[in-house]
């Protein structure tokens, strides 16, 4: 060892401070372990806090406000057209992010977690080299890899820091409100960010290679959003790809290809939202026996353990659904396993939420999956036209759907679209995790008037008698 090189020892080394990493670190510390968290940025939070969930939801909330202010005219309140101060929006987002990041730093410190800024790479299965930090090596008893993922680009297209071709990261910087924006990819990132820019006044053209938006989401849940986006966006072009994408100082030039031919178009900016890749580069995985799957995600077992006995991986880097809440649970499991508890990832329902307006949320089995698996299920739908609360909010385009096992009457899946369904889906998760039958949901009293009633009424439809809708005989 070179003189002057600082080596530290820790019980648990967590690499990456996103929702997977910090949840793991906090849980491990709460279980009495000595924890070191290495993070590239000065503060924990990861993509979710700095370049993902939190900034996008901040802007989506403002988009919703804009829409509500506009449609209030129909309800008897007319506002003058809003003045959009983009600097003010950025400052507000920065304030939100800063507040949460400071909270995470405090929570780390109060738990006695050592936060180190830098990049860690395995030298062997028990030690990492630390770059960009005065401590140069850390020996650990156990390590948790929580390095997350990054947005991918189109082949041959390089995303520059302040360029006109953006990934979600740059789009959330909100450099300006482009007059026209090309969104490439009809997944939830493209729809959410496309919605933000369209609400702020950009003319958004969305292209998607497949034949529909949000692949995997049931058709009936997608329908209201499709309807809204057709008005909000300038164009939605399905089965359309990009064969070339270049930028100049002033504009982006895209060659779009579809069944009707190839055409060149120009936009002020373009957003590439076609997926994410795990961050495994530069981690020194070659110095361990950790294995990657064909997509490049780290292979783990249900205890989040990699092929190395003392190294765990959680969150995006370990594959599966790339969602913060799934990462957090995995992080806690890894910490508990390290502390000797018999934890394992055995979730039966991981909720997913698309924060567009209307929102779409689902958990457990989807209708599409039930069909593919040929499961014997009964599906009941409660349309929000029959919901009093939805009527008060002018949000009757929603739909609540439950998917119930035909034999056992157990709730297998829930899908909802409409306003504020992000919160409604949690009841479905609990129901599925608890093994609830439809009757359990129907018999649990739901407050009136709320949107949550749509869930108990869907269960009542299943039982044959719902209050606010005539069940089919």
């Amino acid at each position, binding site marked *: 060892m070179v003189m002057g090189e600082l080596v530290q020892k820790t019980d648990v080394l967590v690499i990456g401070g996103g929702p997977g990493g910090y949840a793991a670190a906090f849980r491990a*510390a*709460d*279980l*009495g372990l*000595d924890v070191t968290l290495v993070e590239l940025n000065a503060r924990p939070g990861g993509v979710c806090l700095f370049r993902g969930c939190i900034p996008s939801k901040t802007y989506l909330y403002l988009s919703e406000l804009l829409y509500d202010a506009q449609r209030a005219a129909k309800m008897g309140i007319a506002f003058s057209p809003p003045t959009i101060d983009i600097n003010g929006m950025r400052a507000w987002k920065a304030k939100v992010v800063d507040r949460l990041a400071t909270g995470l730093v405090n929570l780390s410190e109060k*738990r*006695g977690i050592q936060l180190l800024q830098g990049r860690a790479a395995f030298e062997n299965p028990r030690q990492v080299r630390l770059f960009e930090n005065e401590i140069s090596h850390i020996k650990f008893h156990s390590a948790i890899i929580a390095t997350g993922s990054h947005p991918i680009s189109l082949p041959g297209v390089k995303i520059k820091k302040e360029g006109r071709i953006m990934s979600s990261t740059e789009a959330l910087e909100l450099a300006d409100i482009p007059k026209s924006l090309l969104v490439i990819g009809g997944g939830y990132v493209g729809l959410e960010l496309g919605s933000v820019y369209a609400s702020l006044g950009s003319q958004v053209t969305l292209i998607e290679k497949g034949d529909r938006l949000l692949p995997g989401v049931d058709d009936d849940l997608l329908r209201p959003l499709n309807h809204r986006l057709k008005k909000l966006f300038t164009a939605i072009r399905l089965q359309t790809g990009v064969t070339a994408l270049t930028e100049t100082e002033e504009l982006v030039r895209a060659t779009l290809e579809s069944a009707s031919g190839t055409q060149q178009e120009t936009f002020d900016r373009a957003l590439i939202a076609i997926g994410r890749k795990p961050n495994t580069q530069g981690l020194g995985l070659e110095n361990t026996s950790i294995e990657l799957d064909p997509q490049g995600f780290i292979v783990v*077992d*249900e205890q989040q353990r990699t092929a190395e006995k003392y190294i765990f991986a959680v969150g995006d880097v370990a594959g599966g659904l790339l969602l913060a809440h799934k990462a957090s649970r995995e992080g806690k499991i890894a910490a508990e396993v390290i502390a000797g*508890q*018999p*934890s*394992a990832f*055995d*979730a*039966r329902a991981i909720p997913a939420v698309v924060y567009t307006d209307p929102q779409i949320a689902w958990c457990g089995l989807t209708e599409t999956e039930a069909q593919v698996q040929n499961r014997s299920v009964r599906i009941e739908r409660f349309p929000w036209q029959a919901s009093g609360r939805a009527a008060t909010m002018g949000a009757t385009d929603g739909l609540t759907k439950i998917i119930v096992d035909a034999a*056992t*009457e*157990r709730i297998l899946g829930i899908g909802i679209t409409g306003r504020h369904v992000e919160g409604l889906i949690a009841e479905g998760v609990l129901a599925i*995790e*608890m*093994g*609830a*039958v439809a009757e*359990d949901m129907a018999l649990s009293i739901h407050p009136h008037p709320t949107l949550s009633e749509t869930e108990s009424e869907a269960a009542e439809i299943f039982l044959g008698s719902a209050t606010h809708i005539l069940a089919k005989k």
Partner: protein
Amino acid sequence: MARAFKLPDLGEGIHEGEVLSVLVAIGDDITEGDLILEVETDKAAVEIPSPYTGKILEILVKPGDIVKVGDALMTFSNGDEAEVIPAEISVPSANALQTEPKEDITKPIADQGPVPASPATRRLARELDVDLRKIEPSGSGGRVTAEDVRRFAAQAVGPAPLNTESILPSAPPVAPVTMDANLPNFSKWGTTERVPFRSIRRAIGKQMSLAWSQIPHVTSQGSVDITRLEEFRRRHINDIEAKGGKLTLSVFALKAAATALRAYPNFNASLDLENEEIIIKHYYHIGVAVDTAEGLIVPVIRDVDRKSITELAIELNELVQRTRARKASLDDMQGGTFTITNIGPMGTGYFAPIINYPQVAIMGLGAAKMQPVVIENETDGYEIVPRLILPVVLTIDHRVLDGADASRFMQVVIDSLQDPDELLMTMV
């Protein structure tokens, strides 16, 4: 061809042990019979010999690991490959090649779907190492409840169902020791060390947490004048020693307790909440708490009511020796109906013991001391005399017994110990 060595059945109902040391290293050439591991079970440290001859390829455990019977411990290469391979292929027995990890209890079987059970119940099942699919569900819609898991775990461990008998410290893991998630980082305030919470200590922890969480405890205190009993004890101590016995206060306490248990059978009972019944036992097997280097162990003396003071003195002495040497068998620790704990030799006075679940009462003896006692004499009223006073405590399960019962029980014990003649009468 690699072959796995799995923890063999160590007998006597032992299901798991803690690896104390690994006596070999990867690459060592081992001959059948060489000692390869030291494993501590709830009762004894066992050195495990190798069943194979060959080179060690992998060591899958480390000191401190808890291993269960059937867990793979290490893998061996075998020199005689040609002989071994066909044998293993044709006879897939328990000894056959096993390099796969233990079956995952959480992974749902594809064609059955997951067993309906709440996340907390599923976690409990993992803690107790129970396969949810094997449990008969009691919840609505076929849901497996936490209670179902506990009951199944208790039944799976021993032939004795939970509600009739339990053992200490090898009690089935019916209630996990709850984890205090909020421990601060103590090393902020000074140096600390971490000592494993394992084996007997862990078994005690489980049993005590269970008892404390399930039983509403009430403790009463009394004192006995044992001046005359002590004279009696000193008179006979030598002849009993000559017979191999040790005439301690515990021997008399056993006898006194048996007398009181016969008088008040509800103390010799267990509560079966599920069937809403009190199980009264018509045998008097009394556990005696023994302090060993590894922690508390409670062996049981059977049919105390039918044995003489001399027999009990000999049997108790022998049982305590055996227990301290970690040689007591699982049988020695099962079947108790009541427990006596004598901490007198350590000098403590009054205390409040925890009931040995699923029993419903425990009696404790403190340290006897000469004390001034006011007595009434026949001539001139009161006088103060030095007497040897023994503190006695009795903890009851208030679901089954009341404070008044405790007083009545205690009075029988006091009367018996105060008057050796009466105690001896009961021996007949």
